[in-house]
């Protein structure tokens, strides 16, 4: 199977799974924006994405996307370390045109996963998993708004999430155009176009996430009952 035993095939899997995850982030960001304007609207989305069959199928597909992307990332990195050989250069200079993020995608990815674990514990565990398995009794799985407000009333949490979005931004600025290059829909003209489109798009996504975190903190943490950490 060329998607596993050829270098380009493995990279294609990375690209497609990566673009799929970018698509997910886009939806997630749009849904978050709703909370800034209306708790009811946000909770309606939470209910819609609860323990329904379509939401569960979606969750499984999403989890598969994450798993494939992560497993391939480690696999490719191990192969690349081997291909580099055991002797390292004594002097190594990064050329000006080489992005720092492009050489540190695994590190950035690991930072993103670590924050994802925290994020899952804070929300998914108490919402979808709670609804299907009752793991957190006493918490209404459909009242996502209360959970989000609770978390983002604390300034430290907002700061942590901002660090997460920053790492994600670095990861995606390289990831987006790199995916286009790997799929082969790139040339001398589209090279800069894809880079610009990618940079603008992922900046909007990350700013959207950051906007919600900060807005919730200002609305409920700063102006409301005060930050409880």
């Amino acid at each position, binding site marked *: 199977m060329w998607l596993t035993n050829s270098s380009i095939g493995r990279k294609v899997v990375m690209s497609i799974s990566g673009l799929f995850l970018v698509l997910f982030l886009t939806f997630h960001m749009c849904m978050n924006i709703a909370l800034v304007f209306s708790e009811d609207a946000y909770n309606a989305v939470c209910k819609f994405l609860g323990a329904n069959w379509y939401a569960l199928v979606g969750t499984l597909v999403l989890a598969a996307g994450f798993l494939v992307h992560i497993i391939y990332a480690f696999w490719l990195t191990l192969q690349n370390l081997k291909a580099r050989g055991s002797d390292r250069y004594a002097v190594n200079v990064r*050329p000006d045109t080489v992005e720092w993020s492009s050489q540190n995608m695994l590190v950035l990815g690991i930072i993103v996963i670590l924050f994802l674990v925290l994020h899952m514990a804070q929300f998914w565990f108490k919402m979808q998993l709670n609804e299907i398995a009752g793991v957190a009794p006493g918490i209404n799985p459909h009242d996502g708004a209360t959970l989000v407000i609770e978390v983002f009333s604390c300034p430290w949490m907002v700061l942590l999430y901002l660090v997460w979005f920053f790492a994600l931004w670095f990861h995606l600025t390289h990831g987006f155009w790199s995916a286009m290059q790997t799929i082969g829909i790139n040339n001398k003209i589209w090279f800069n176009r894809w880079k610009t489109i990618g940079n603008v798009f992922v900046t909007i996504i990350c700013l959207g996430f950051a906007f919600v975190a900060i807005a919730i903190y200002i609305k409920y943490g700063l102006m409301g009952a005060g930050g409880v950490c």
Partner: protein
Amino acid sequence: MDKTIDITLKIWRQHDRKAKGAFETYNLKGISTDSSFLEMLDVLNEQLINEGKEPVVFDHDCREGICGMCSLYINGHPHGPDTAVTTCQLHMRKFHNGDVITIEPWRSAGFPVIRDLMVDRTAFDQIIQAGGYISVNCGGAQDANAVRIPKKDADEAMDSASCIGCGACVAACKNGSAMLFVSAKVSQFALLPQGRVEAARRARAMVAKMDELGFGNCTNTGACAAECPKSVSLSNIARLNREFIKAKLKD
């Protein structure tokens, strides 16, 4: 009057493939800034021979930047700090009096060190043998207008063909990937009608050979193109990806 400089060289010395290498330090005085980098190494070797020591082994041939034989990882750059030139065309005027210059061999699992600064690049020959040619008989020289090729394609094929196969791309890549080399070789044929005939087979065979020889997976850092002495473009890699994916989807 020639301007001359005194320099310190830190050179990787390794007796054979299996031996453990180490850096040796040499001092050179009165090197003309008009001399080329390889002429400077010739001066060093002359000095070493006169002292009864083993000269430093390094690859070189045409010394005019077209054969692809010279290598050397100089101060963190394949082919040295100058852009778009090979080591043989690098001149000592790029360095200053008192500089410490670190010279290393290409380091990649695909290019094992033979001795000192010389590495085994036959892996590239094997990749070419896997499909980097046209096997159809093109006949005698035709009228220039008989096969019409758009200027844009002809130029791009020519740019791809400027790859001299020196291996700087692999040396620069943190993943030890040979994608820039393979993509240039696939592109120079894929862009022209004579090469188009075998395009799919060529992409499949050359990529398979590249993977088999242990070169890494491309992660699009772009270090290869930045360090390439012939400025071969990253767009070749996109074209190779496209050709390969098309070939595999057709299977």
